[in-house]
């Protein structure tokens, strides 16, 4: 419509609501069906969903890349992958995206690196959301001392410089997948808890909660069966927007040498290794960076799309 302020005239309405359309309009549709209908119309969100499916497929079929090129993920090709000066080879028929400082195939390593990024992105985010949701529900529902304690904990965690504490934790343990996920979960839950708590505070005053209580439902039943489904849409939106943040965190930890230890292929770590060589071997820096950026961008666009679809009241910021 050219003028959004003007009311639709009867002609326009008559055109839009034909007989078929009327039948369509009165058909009952659930929240999720409506959301899916809105989502499908969002071209940017659909494209980013496609990109994410692609990245997931690359991660699942990473071994296929290895067998097609004949280059194992940690295999070093000192003859073919390094030139006479011991420097990486540029992209060519043999190494589609070039080779790295040890003569390994960058394409194959990016494919394997997608596994770590996606795995940590999803698992650490779910852990973060789970801890945050449970503590947020408890703080909002029980109130009183429970609320005060959890609120103080939230304040504390939010005011800590996350990366420095990650450094401290890793410096007394061994770096690895588990510690990365634990660190992200331990420091990430506070923001989720704060959002859930705010929601629960208003929901718990509703009549249906009173009704549940008068029927003798236990506190835990009310929290998880009656309240949780009502904060679910917001949790889903938050989860999708948290995944790219988590992926960046994992890559950052690995870049700093606090994440996934070598020789496991990991994007952040590959970028760190390329840092001293980008003047001679741009492909070593550019391709892993592009993989990381495309993935986080796709997740952010998808998150925006899901938010618009589930919560059309919120304007796209």
């Amino acid at each position, binding site marked *: 419509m050219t003028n959004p302020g003007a009311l639709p005239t009867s002609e326009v309405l008559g055109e839009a609501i034909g007989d078929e359309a009327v039948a369509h309009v009165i058909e009952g549709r659930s929240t999720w069906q409506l959301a899916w209908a809105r989502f499908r119309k969002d071209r940017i969100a659909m494209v980013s969903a496609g990109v994410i499916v692609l990245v997931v497929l690359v991660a699942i079929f990473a071994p296929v890349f290895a067998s097609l090129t004949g280059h194992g993920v940690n295999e070093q090709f000192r003859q073919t992958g390094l030139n006479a000066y011991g420097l990486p080879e540029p992209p060519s028929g043999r190494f589609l995206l070039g080779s790295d400082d040890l003569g390994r195939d960058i394409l194959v390593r990016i494919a394997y690196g997608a596994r770590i990024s996606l795995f940590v992105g999803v698992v650490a985010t779910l852990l973060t959301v789970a801890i945050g949701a449970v503590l947020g529900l408890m703080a909002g529902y029980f109130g009183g001392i429970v609320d005060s304690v959890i609120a103080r904990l939230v304040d504390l965690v939010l005011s800590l410089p996350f990366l420095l504490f990650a450094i*401290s934790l890793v410096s007394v343990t061994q770096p690895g997948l588990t510690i990365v996920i634990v660190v992200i979960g331990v420091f990430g839950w506070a923001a989720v808890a704060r959002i859930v708590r705010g929601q629960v505070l208003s929901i718990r005053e509703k009549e249906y909660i009173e009704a549940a209580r008068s029927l003798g439902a236990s506190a835990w039943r009310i929290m998880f069966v009656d309240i949780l489904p009502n904060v679910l849409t917001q949790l889903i939106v938050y989860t999708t927007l948290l995944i790219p943040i988590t992926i960046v965190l994992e890559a950052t930890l690995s*870049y700093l040498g606090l994440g996934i230890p070598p020789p496991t292929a990991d994007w952040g770590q590959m970028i760190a290794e390329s840092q001293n060589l980008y003047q001679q071997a741009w492909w070593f820096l550019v391709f892993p960076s592009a993989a990381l950026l495309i993935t*986080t961008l796709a997740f952010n666009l998808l998150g925006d799309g899901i938010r618009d679809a589930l919560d059309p009241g919120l304007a796209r910021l």
Partner: protein
Amino acid sequence: MVRFLIRRIILGVLVMIMVTMLVFGIFFVGDNAETVAYRLAGKNAQLKTVNLIIKRLHLHDPIYVQYWDFLKRLVWHHDLGYSYYGNEPVSTILKQTVPVTLSLAIGAAIIWLVIGVLSGVLSAVRRGSILDRVITTLALFFYSMPTFVLGLMLLFLVSYQLQVRGIRIFPGQGYVGLTQSPLGWLESLTLPWLTLALVSAATYSRLTRGSLLEVLGEDYIRTARAKGLRERRVIFRHGLRSALTPVASQFGIDVGVLVGGAIVTETVFGLPGLGLTAVRAISNGDLPVIIGIVIVASAAVVVANIVMDMVYAFLDPRVRLH
């Protein structure tokens, strides 16, 4: 206002006590004195060193006595111990590194607020225009960009490409002190500032745009326009002042993010600040340095949070009440 300040300071002290407990828990609590001593001195430490550490830090005492001693050393003597690697007091190392991180963080924070708020205002005022599209797209792009990727890209696309063409500004690595050479300082920090600023500016652009759009729909904005004020005055005086409250509160939260970003940026550009020193200390197993940096940086974040809360309370008087 004074009561609010006092309450915030008490809360800040509480947070600092919890920080010291956390740090103490991470580094000084273990199965027995020997494990802790080996953790502090490194796996390959000699028995003599280990015994010396146990004696010096009284590692055989009960935990709460040790914690009390740890606090006493920290608060009364400002003693953060010695670096095992460089054999230098940690406080000396901090004195050398803090100015670098401060230069980086403060400069970047200014750039990020200016770019973020201005681009947010522009895109809200010209809502739906091409300019708005460009700004929101760029904002999302930089928002998705990991700090270290942006830093390396700037190094590769700006510093290196200029260097190849014979223009030697923006050195890729290293830091020049402000007192040494103001111009060199500016040059060595321009790219790090941009790196640290652009990623966060994107968030602020999105935030300012959303919040200003909401405010511009309010009745009092219509009133201001109706009484014939110029558009610029309506937006900056009437609109932006209340639109900035969520931005100020977000900035309070982001001081910790600033510290984290500074660590990464220093590593990318080889700036000898707190972050690079902490990262190097890990590979050397130099725990006293890490402990000192964590405590000092946390204290800085706590103080900055209090300052930001005061600014916030000034912008939005409702905050003072609860």
